């Protein structure tokens, strides 16, 4: 990965840094702050309060959004009336849990909750309506958990009757978290070491996923009209998205950090790709975002001036791409609501993989429902141009690259790290090397990062630095105005060596900043 930056400049700044960091006098390891970011910077958890539904009056103030709503109102009705036609029901046949007249054998009339395997699941997620109708259960069929859903609804409404809201229940080893979102109740029962605020963020993601399929407007209207509505009818197919999202929440640091990882490319290559897309699309009106992703990483993102994308919305888009095999087969036209962008209406997404021989996925998002053919055409042009400039090869090479292990960075003390640039909401981490290459190892590492992240971002008392020595590793988390750094060390590392390693990591990141991160924010 070459860097286009002047390296002398970097060394100069880092020169006498040894022994000073972390949290001595701050030297210039802060990332370059772009003038503008394509992503909303994320600094903290979404707290309960911040997660209140957006104020509709505030939304309507914006002309473009109003336009967006006007157009999408029609399509939201289409979804309600004709679920077969829209993308969300693509895989109805894949689902066995949806239909009421389930073909599953009926002899299992026992409640699943008596089942030891079910009880020992590490993380349960339940969604129900405020009337107690089951909507989703991660493990076990909702139909067999009716009593449990009833109890949860009763708890929520009993405490709600007092003008209070239930938040969480703590037992020795198990945590229960509730999130009440208008007509919907989300609950999580987990035996992990996650905190209430972290689980709340996850439940918010799950809720966003549902809004993304239905829009908030439709969701609200359904329950206004019929409090007892069985939402599963509309969410057919979305269960798979929720399942996939929950796995992503458990396994990907991106969702923990509220950031995205970029596909490492030299800045000239990335700019060339960006310019190609811009040149093919800048004539198309109402195109809001063009997003190119590959291997769950962002290649480039081009946006309509005025609009920026929230990382949480981008995570939903990535979740859609990652959980839909069908996009690989043919170009698709699918409605998607991005809750942070506008929870009240749909955007329309033209989704397609670049080519048989290039597995990067291009999403063109518009407010205009009639734009399928122009976008399809634009996509063909983009692919042709990219191919001619052998940029497809560059993308393929980057995708095929096994990733940089931490050993290549010359920091033997560190086993792994995550670096997040706060201003651009992007992060980078090396590929896991032993002892984290196994799935248990990776899980433990992410658990350790979660502990660090929680403590550093604790709503009551955020911290600047946390150094935690545990039996399996020593963890260091450090937050400055520009970046967040989380490092896993050998358990017996000395503090001097740890600090030395941190400095080396920061210097390395600084050197490769332009390849690892998208530092500009291109527009159409």
């Amino acid at each position: 990965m070459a860097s286009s930056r002047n390296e002398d400049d970097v060394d100069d700044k880092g020169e006498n840094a040894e022994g000073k960091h972390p949290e001595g006098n701050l030297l210039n390891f802060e990332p370059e702050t772009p003038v503008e970011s394509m992503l909303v910077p994320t600094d903290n958890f979404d707290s309960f309060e911040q997660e209140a539904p957006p104020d509709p009056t505030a939304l309507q103030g914006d002309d473009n959004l109003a336009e967006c709503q006007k157009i999408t109102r029609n399509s939201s009705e289409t979804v309600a009336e004709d679920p077969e036609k829209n993308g969300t029901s693509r895989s109805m046949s894949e689902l066995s849990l949806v239909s009421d007249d389930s073909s599953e054998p009926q002899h299992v009339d026992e409640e699943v909750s008596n089942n030891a395997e079910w009880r020992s699941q590490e993380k349960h997620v339940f969604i129900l309506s405020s009337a107690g109708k089951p909507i989703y259960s991660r493990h076990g069929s909702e139909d067999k958990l009716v009593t449990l859903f009833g109890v949860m609804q009763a708890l929520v409404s009993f405490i709600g009757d007092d003008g209070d809201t239930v938040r969480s229940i703590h037992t020795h080893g198990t945590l229960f978290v509730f999130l009440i979102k208008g007509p919907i109740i989300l609950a999580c029962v987990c035996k992990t070491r996650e905190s209430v605020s972290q689980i709340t963020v996850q439940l918010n993601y799950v809720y966003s996923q549902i809004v993304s399929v239905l829009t908030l407007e439709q969701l609200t209207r359904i329950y206004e009209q019929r409090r007892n509505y069985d939402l599963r009818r509309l969410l057919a197919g979305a269960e798979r998205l929720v399942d996939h999202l929950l796995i992503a929440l458990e396994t990907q640091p991106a969702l923990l950090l509220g950031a995205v990882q970029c596909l490492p490319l030299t800045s000239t290559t990335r700019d060339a790709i960006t310019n190609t897309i811009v040149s093919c699309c800048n004539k198309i009106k109402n195109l809001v975002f063009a997003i190119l992703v590959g291997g769950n990483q962002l290649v480039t993102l081009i946006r309509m001036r005025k609009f920026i994308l929230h990382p949480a919305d981008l995570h939903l888009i990535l979740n859609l791409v990652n959980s839909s095999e069908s996009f690989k087969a043919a170009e698709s036209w699918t409605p998607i609501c991005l809750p942070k962008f506008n929870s009240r209406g749909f955007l329309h997404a033209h989704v397609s993989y670049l080519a048989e021989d290039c597995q990067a996925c291009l999403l063109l998002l518009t407010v205009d429902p009639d734009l399928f053919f122009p976008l399809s055409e634009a996509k063909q042009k983009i692919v042709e141009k990219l191919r001619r400039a052998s940029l497809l090869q560059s993308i393929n090479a980057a995708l095929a690259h096994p990733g940089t292990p931490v050993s290549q960075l010359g920091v033997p003390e560190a086993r792994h790290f995550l670096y997040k640039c706060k201003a651009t909401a992007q992060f980078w981490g090396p590929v896991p090397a032993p002892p984290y290459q196994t799935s248990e190892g990776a899980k433990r590492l992410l658990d350790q990062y979660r502990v660090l992240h929680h403590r550093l971002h604790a709503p009551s008392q955020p911290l600047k630095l946390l150094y935690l020595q545990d039996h399996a590793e020593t963890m260091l988390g450090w937050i400055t105005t520009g970046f967040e750094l989380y490092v896993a060390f050998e358990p017996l590392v000395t503090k001097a060596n740890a600090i030395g390693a941190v400095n080396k990591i920061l210097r390395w990141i600084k050197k490769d900043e332009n390849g690892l991160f998208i530092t500009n924010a291109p527009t159409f």
Partner: protein
Amino acid sequence: MAHDSILSLKYFYIFNSNYGQKEGEEAQKILYFYPPQTDLDTQIKNVGLTEAIIKFTDTFNSYQKCESLHTLKTRQLYFQPEEGFWMVQVLTVPTVTKVKEGVDHLEYQSDEIQDNIYWSVLEQVYRSFSLFNGTFSKILEESDLTKLRYKLASYLSKYLAKIRLQHADILDVFHGIQFLPLDKKTFLHVQTLVNLLECSFPRVQHTAFLYNDQLVWSGLEPDDMQVLYRYLVSSLLPAQMECELQGGPMPRQSTSFSALHYGRFASGPTNLQNTDIGKIPKVHLRGGAGSAVCHLVIYRALSATICMLIDEAVSLEIEFFQRLDVFLGQRLTKLASEIAEQCSHSSSTVPVESGAKFVYYNQLNRAQKSTVHLDNRRNGNISVPPDVLKILADLNADFMDRKPSTGETIVKTMNDYWVVGKLSNLREFYVVIHQKNANLIEINEEVKKLCDSQFKSIFFNE
């Protein structure tokens, strides 16, 4: 930050679901409810909710204790001290008014309440109750539900009236004992007195020796001493000192003793010429060989206090107290002066240059030491900001959660306080340092220095 409403005790109740299982008889489940004037309907509703929560959590994890319920406005802590019996403490979450976009906005500060602290406070209520009354099941064995309800009501109404919730902190998690370090000679004098006392008065089963509010010697099991110490320090001794201040430490008017001495019974007869032996509390000890009930006789001279535990089967007469007084009076007065002299020498311990403050706790002997707290009165007189003090309890909760045998955590807060937590062989050590431009290594050095000066003989893992 000005709190609009502070943390307070909303409800406190004890129930047993095995009683009153028929519909309409739910009230029988309730053994105690605070505030007592709460209407029965509210009482039943609260107990019902707790029962529902416990049952609901049981669906997912059998045999794991249910600890707390967080709601927007309350924090409810659950404790099951004995099979079937649940104690519940409901706290109101403190609030502040914040101005957001020109509009007053009430914010509930749920994070102000740390579960581990208030759970310990709750557990302490039970331990204190059972020290003086015995366990719930024992009371039921010996008498009936009415008696249990009566005992709970009479003990808890006094206890809860005095409970200080707002300034509860890490020390409430430990409920530790402050020891008084003495030089070898003085310590041997104390031990000699205790041994001589126990030989001369075989009725005395256990003895504890305190100087001011610090423990010098204890023959009790640590668990029992911990609760007894809490009672002495927080309730008996302050009352004694107040009464001594008012009357002055007068020598006994009795002429039958040749030399002056300042000894008197803090629990026992106030006047040895009288046949009235006064009210002597009984304590229920848990430690050692099963549970035992003992008379608690306390004798004081100057700042020294001797607690003597005597089997409840022994009947106490005034003659016994007279003999005790003769035996202890002069000896204890002399010993108290000796300790006082030594304390005045050693009290000028070198202050730590860096201004580092620390809290230390040893799980094995329940020893606790704090320079974070400026006095022993537990009313928020502390040398570090309250939000920094909270971190100590967080670090403790984290240690207890992960249960490592050794571990170290270092944090730096937004306002440049460093907090270091160390756990090593059941010893916990927390240091607070305020140094803006220090780095991790310098802080590490500071902590090392502090360990060397304060805890020379204790090994802390690096």
